[in-house]
């Protein structure tokens, strides 16, 4: 069992061994400023009221907790055992994913800090779209860094960002994916730190980002607790979420960290398989390392060079992971599993056909893990899955992977 206090990083921004601030000196004063400003923002009643109001009226919160009746029936065994599956519908948020919770919180914070220019990195484009959206809402300049490979596979989101008035800056370095976009965003921040706020999109990066992004996403878990109480008067038994950097998982988990009866499971991308070099299973196969300002598990070669990750899902295609997840893995408080591209594609179709919900490919990884998990669960435990995003953005990728599907089978 873990104490509540260990869910807060120490003064150096560490969750146990993990986290910290491994950044060039130029950024250190900005991180201190951000930490102080965030502390004030949390205590500022008017700012919090504004955030709550916008979460309700602009984002559309609370997002529903939906009982997935046919998915539950699909995994019910002949003897009646099997999990009761609920979906936390973050896909119904404005812009179609959980990312807006954090983008909105950080843009209000940036305004409090008097920074008029916003930068962000994006993989799948969901965080980029969320950031572009809140910048449009508040009339702020917005530059989004995106790998060229991701721009191709998430073309719809590139168009959305541009439509919203953001400048999408292509990053060709490395593999042209999320890792490279993040590095380039950090370089921009190093250069323009005096008038720019960097809205980092996951629970990664240097302190205070892992804590702050988690806190802005924690609304997911808080609502879930209340909704579970309303529905059955108790807590959920298991929580399930996909993990790339890990923000939707932390957002769901955080509220339940001090509830030892709630099992926490994160699902990583195994890409083409854990036995290949094409995966993004950082917690499963990574070693301790430092990337983008934080110490955490990391996919790296024997010389400490960061490896390319691979996943069919652009949002999970990242060789690092948020430091708190590394801490939760080592402490045993959370468990981590992985599913392949193929398994995620199958789950993408399964949820579409059984529930009429087309999930993001990222989310499909969490759904896919039901194939392994559900048969092992005795009785009828209540399982909440973070349905973190909708899949419209992935349709092109899926068409490429599956063909046009022909007639329904």
């Amino acid at each position, binding site marked *: 069992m873990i104490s509540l206090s260990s869910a807060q990083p120490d003064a150096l921004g560490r969750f146990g061994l993990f986290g910290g601030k491994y950044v060039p*000196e130029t950024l250190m004063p900005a991180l201190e400023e951000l930490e102080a400003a965030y502390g004030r923002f949390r205590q500022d009643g008017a700012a919090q009221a504004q955030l709550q109001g916008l979460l309700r009226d602009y984002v559309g919160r609370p997002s529903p907790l939906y009982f997935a009746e046919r998915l539950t029936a699909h995994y019910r065994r002949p003897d009646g055992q099997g999990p009761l599956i609920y979906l936390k519908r973050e896909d119904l948020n404005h812009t179609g994913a959980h990312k807006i919770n954090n983008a909105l919180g950080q843009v209000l914070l940036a305004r409090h800090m008097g920074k008029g220019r916003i930068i962000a990195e994006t993989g799948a484009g969901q965080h980029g779209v969320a950031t572009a959206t809140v910048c449009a809402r508040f009339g702020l300049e917005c530059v989004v860094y995106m790998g060229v490979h991701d721009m191709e596979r998430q073309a719809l989101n590139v168009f959305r960002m541009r439509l919203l008035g953001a400048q999408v800056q292509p990053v060709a370095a*490395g593999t042209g994916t999320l890792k490279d976009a993040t590095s380039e965003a950090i370089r921009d921040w190093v*250069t323009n730190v005096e008038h720019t706020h960097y809205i980092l999109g996951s629970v990664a990066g240097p302190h205070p980002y892992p804590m702050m992004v988690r806190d802005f996403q924690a609304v997911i878990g808080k609502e879930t607790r209340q909704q579970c109480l309303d529905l059955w008067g108790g807590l959920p038994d298991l929580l399930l979420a996909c993990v790339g950097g890990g923000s939707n998982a932390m957002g769901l988990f955080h509220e339940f960290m001090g509830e030892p009866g709630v099992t926490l499971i994160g699902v990583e991308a195994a890409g083409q398989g854990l036995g290949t070099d094409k995966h993004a299973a950082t917690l499963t196969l990574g070693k301790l390392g430092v990337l983008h300002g934080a110490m955490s598990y*990391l996919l790296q070669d024997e*010389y400490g060079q960061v490896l390319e990750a691979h996943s069919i899902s652009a949002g999970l295609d990242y060789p690092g992971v948020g430091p708190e997840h590394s801490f939760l893995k080592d402490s045993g408080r959370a468990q981590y599993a992985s599913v392949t591209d193929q398994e995620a594609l199958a789950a993408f179709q399964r949820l579409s056909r059984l529930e009429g919900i087309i999930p993001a490919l990222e989310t499909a990884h969490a759904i896919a893990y039901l194939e392994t998990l559900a048969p092992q669960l005795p009785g009828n435990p209540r399982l909440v899955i973070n349905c973190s995003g909708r899949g419209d953005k992935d349709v092109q990728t899926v068409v490429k992977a599956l063909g046009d599907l022909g007639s329904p089978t």
Partner: protein
Amino acid sequence: MNKVSDCFRVLRLNGRCALIPFITAGDPDLETTALALKTLADQGADLIELGVPYSDPLADGPVIQAASTRALGRGVTLEGVLEMVEEATPSLKPPLVLFTYYNPILSWGVENFLGRAAQAGVSGLVVPDLPLEEAAPLLQAAQAQGLEVVLLVAPTSSPARIQAIAEQSQGFIYLVSVVGVTGMRTELEQRVPGLIAQIRQVNQKPVAVGFGISSPPQAAQVKAWGADAVVVGSAFVKRLGSGDPAAGLQAIGEFCQSLRQALD
């Protein structure tokens, strides 16, 4: 043995502003890097900063990023760089300062890496993604090996940070002269002279100014502002990396000489 500190002691006695060229190891190849170290030493370098190629060089601009990518593409490793250094240092007069990101050190193991680097004849370390708050384990372990870990001050650093960094920095204090990443700039940051003065007020360690300096007039300007040393990186890396190795070596030799003249 503190070769970096000792070197600056002699430089100060002679009233000489030090020239510290930076090159990326393994670009275009390690043989050329070994020759480049000798060329730079012959053409007036007082210390040399050797960059270890890394997959995610957050503090570097396009020129050094590209050089790192090319070197890694040819299979250059930290181990290979240290082997080359071990052969080069016995006949190399300027102390060698290794510029490496933290993850390759961490992956090797801090103690093991430091032992190997000291054995290879490395005198100092610059780790650009290891600010003061994270540097303690490396600072302590390096001292035991006779290696000096140089910390960086930036234009954004507060007076309190400048004082704390200056106290902990070993060998010299590396003043980052721009708010930004490495790379050639046409204009120098006007805050530099004030920052040098600020450091001087709290600490007597030598101050080297780097990031963005790419021409003899700029080097002379930094000297006039009172720096003890001038670091020039991307302008060397660009000359050495473009064209064939022989032409690159000649180009960096001439460039080094022109910088030296500007500083004398």
